[in-house]
């Protein structure tokens, strides 16, 4: 099956700092989503981004499908950004099921 790797696995930031999270995948995809799992376990949709660039407030994401990676940018981080960030992909003909990456655990400190 498709492999999805995320880096870094852990990240500690001071409030106000910027960061870039990376997601590499091993095969072609027709769907890529970024999620934030908050400390209570809720998965929150951030972006649906199989290709191109999107921005939403302090967050933006870029997927380069031909090179099989996606980047999530967090600017001016806040303590509420803490949690685990997952990317998840769906393969063409993969039956709509998402394969999740290994996750990046982010902690934002005051």
């Amino acid at each position, binding site marked *: 099956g498709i492999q999805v790797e995320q880096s870094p696995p852990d990240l500690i930031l001071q409030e106000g700092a910027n960061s870039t999270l990376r997601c590499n995948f091993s095969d072609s995809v027709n769907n890529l989503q970024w*999620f934030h799992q908050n400390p209570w*376990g809720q*998965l929150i949709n951030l972006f649906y981004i199989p290709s191109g660039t999107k921005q939403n407030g302090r967050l933006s994401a870029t997927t380069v499908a031909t090179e099989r990676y996606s980047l999530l940018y967090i600017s001016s981080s806040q303590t509420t950004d803490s949690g685990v960030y997952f990317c998840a992909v769906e393969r063409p003909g993969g*039956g*709509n099921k*998402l394969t999740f990456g290994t*996750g990046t655990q982010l902690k934002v400190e005051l």
Partner: protein
Amino acid sequence: GAGVSQTPSNKVTEKGKYVELRCDPISGHTALYWYRQSLGQGPEFLIYFQGTGAADDSGLPNDRFFAVRPEGSVSTLKIQRTERGDSAVYLCASSLGTSVDTQYFGPGTRLTVL
């Protein structure tokens, strides 16, 4: 509008017992998914429904696991003869059911098998 809801939020059971976990998808979403998340890992796919039928059940770990969606809305995940290794958070998601679309997740049910 209301998001995906799951009940119960927590379930503690004894080894060997039977459990049912319920998922209410977003109204109008024809596709429904079940995932399982173990501690420290990303969610793993279990089963996908399009309408009332299971379109893909390749992620169910064994025949103790079964899921239904009889009217194309609410779904129930059923686990027979629970084992301690079944302990995890069970997540449900729904989507519009188009060929490529966004999945929205519920809060999950935390299952603990003693």
